[in-house]
């Protein structure tokens, strides 16, 4: 069975973000970019499944400009067997990504598609669900545990939901999106980095996949949240009541 893993190149989680002065987006020039943390977890899970003997190949996929290849190299260094880069400039919203994945899945025919639950730049949490819908595949989202049954071709997924944990059982092929507690991703070791240099990254364009990228969404404005005002120490109960009444207007 082949596993396809989606990895997204995003601004590094530890970077302090700055909004561009023209409010069209976030400053990305000269900012450290890395693999989305949830995608790392997705890739780690795929690698563990392969190491457990349940899969034969792990394919990492990334979509975007040329620099996505760096992220794919990281994926290959972690242990993915090969990679696919869908070269697309311009904004890629979840629905477009989902359609592109549908096309790739029809080409590669994996038994499992694993994605991170959301990307830390847009926090959409949509792509996995949309792909599953387009493919007509079952989905196990927010996975905190994944157990595969090779013979019965089933996946049992523990999901982190608001009320606790929900366990679902689904037929393969299926879409799984990973949550934080699923695993701790491995580091890229030097021998693997060396091997990764000879692994293949195949490039596609959206035209080759017969997908037209158009978006129904338009970003109007990106602003910082209002700065939290400093607290004030009041000197008496009367002053507190006065402030609650006249400033905060809550009584």
């Amino acid at each position, binding site marked *: 069975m082949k596993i396809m893993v989606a990895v997204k190149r995003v601004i590094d989680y530890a970077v302090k973000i700055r909004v561009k002065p023209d409010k069209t987006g976030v400053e990305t020039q000269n900012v450290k970019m890395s693999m989305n943390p949830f995608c790392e977890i997705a890739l780690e899970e795929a690698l563990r499944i392969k190491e457990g003997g349940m899969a034969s190949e792990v394919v990492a996929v990334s979509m975007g400009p040329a620099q996505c290849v760096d992220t794919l190299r990281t994926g290959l260094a972690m242990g993915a067997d090969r990679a696919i880069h869908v070269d697309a400039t311009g904004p890629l919203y979840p629905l477009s990504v989902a359609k592109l994945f549908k096309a790739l899945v029809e080409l590669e025919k994996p038994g499992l598609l694993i994605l991170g639950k959301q990307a830390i730049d847009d926090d959409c949490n949509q792509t996995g669900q949309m792909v599953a819908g387009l493919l007509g595949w079952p989905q196990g989202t927010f996975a905190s545990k994944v157990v595969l049954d090779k013979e019965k071709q089933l996946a049992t997924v523990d999901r982190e939901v608001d009320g606790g944990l929900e366990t679902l059982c689904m037929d393969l092929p299926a879409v799984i999106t990973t949550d934080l507690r699923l695993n701790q991703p491995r*580091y890229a070791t030097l021998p693997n980095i060396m091997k990764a240099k000879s692994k293949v990254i195949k490039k596609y364009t959206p035209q080759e996949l017969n997908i037209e990228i158009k978006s129904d969404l338009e970003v109007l404005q990106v602003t910082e949240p209002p700065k939290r005002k400093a607290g004030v120490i009041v000197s008496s109960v009367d002053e507190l009541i006065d402030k609650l009444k006249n400033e905060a207007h809550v009584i």
Partner: protein
Amino acid sequence: MQKWRATCRLLLNSYSSKSRFDHPPSNPISDHSTTISRSSSGFESWTSRIHYRHFATAMIQRNPSFSTLNSDDINHFKGILGDKNVIEDEDTLLFANTDWMRKYKGSSKLLLQPRTTQEVSEVLKYCNSRRLAVVPQGGNTGLVGGSVPVFDEVIINVGSMKQVISFDKVSGVLVCEAGCILENLVSFLDNQGFIMPLDLGAKGSCQIGGNVSTNAGGLRLVRYGSLHGTVLGIEAVLANGDVLDMLGTLRKDNTGYDLKHLFIGSEGSLGIVTKVSILTPPKLSSVNLAFLACKDYSSCQKLLFEAKRRLGEILSAFEFLDNESLNLALNHLEGVRNPLPPAMHNFYVLIETTGSDESYDKEKLEAFLLRSMEDGLISDGVIAQDINQASSFWRIREGVPEALMKAGAVYKYDLSLPVETMYNLVEEMRTILGNSAKVIGYGHLGDGNLHLNISTPQYDDAILAQIEPFVYEWTSKQRGSISAEHGLGLMKANKIFYSKSHETVQLMASIKKLMDPNGILNPYKVLPYSIVSYI
């Protein structure tokens, strides 16, 4: 970094909540060490054994020419600083009287917190006239007992002077007060696109005034050099209250004797640093970090040699730790895991590169590492793929001192030695001590700086006798420094002759006499007692 702060707060909390031991007698001629066991509330239940030792190395007596505090003094200070900044509260004093390693404890009855240079000046002027000894204090993270009183010296803590005065975005010159915490300065500069030229594990608590006064080294010295190079100006207050404004922001200024260098590294014994002007390097976007395993020490050395050549200008840190250090860190620190696949390695090296072009640097680093691996210098390694991974690698190296504290008592030595023979000392020490103690070595290999640490369950003078003076003599024979970056403080006040000649020390004593005739600034420290006469 947050964990460092948390540890400090933990100590503070455990001190203020369950303090049960008595004030030690102020005459430390007695030769015993006391251990108290207690467990800290709230946090993970590790038992912290608080040790304080009376400095058994030499008999120090309180200098009789110093006056004792009286209520007139307290009132005078309250007049200068206001009631709130004159602290006699025992719990706070306990924390201010004890060093980070919990090895040294003074018995000061007064903590002063001036907010301006003027206040520092008035306080010192008064203390000088009354012949009251003082201890300048910042973050109190020093490792040689230089930041806490020996007897009842008045503690002058500049922590309240924490303003950033100015920052020039073009030149990168930062002017700030001495009480600014290093990590806060790093955050401030981060917003401007700059970084501090020094970085050390204590950054969450240490203050820039203290860093400058001790000429702190740290992890990036191999790239940015020492504070003697990056500090452009200092404002300091002398013992008699005179304010010395040498707060230049000029890169080049050859007008007269460059006195600021006297204050950098003199550990508060020549004056109290109140403002610092420092040249900050631009923050470069591409930072890469590799955690590597080497099979023996000579591989580490060769790796350093190669790194300086092949990585050249982008090399920004080169640290090493031995297997025992790594195990200590893994065992005692939380949330820390071995970056490498489990295997027996003997040494670990951290190499960091900082440059302006991400892909170029990464290629350069990867090429260097792969080649080193082919040459057999590295047996395994990982490269951090994002900032979080990099932080977790650094956590291991920066957390070793913390892990040592949790493991029990620690004898800490900070030595500059020729790189070729550095680790021999660790091995010899191990042979001498055998099973009675755990000997670990780690440090700034890039600068030839070894941190030799001997970990024992409790402080034990028998073990100390096997360590000293052996370590100092060994270092002296190699013409090394018995204190690479930690300073002399109290711990090594009498040891300077292992690394400096008699004539040199004589001149130091003359300068001290000139600048502080009454000897009130941080007495009993830095220079040997026999040399500095207070009369």
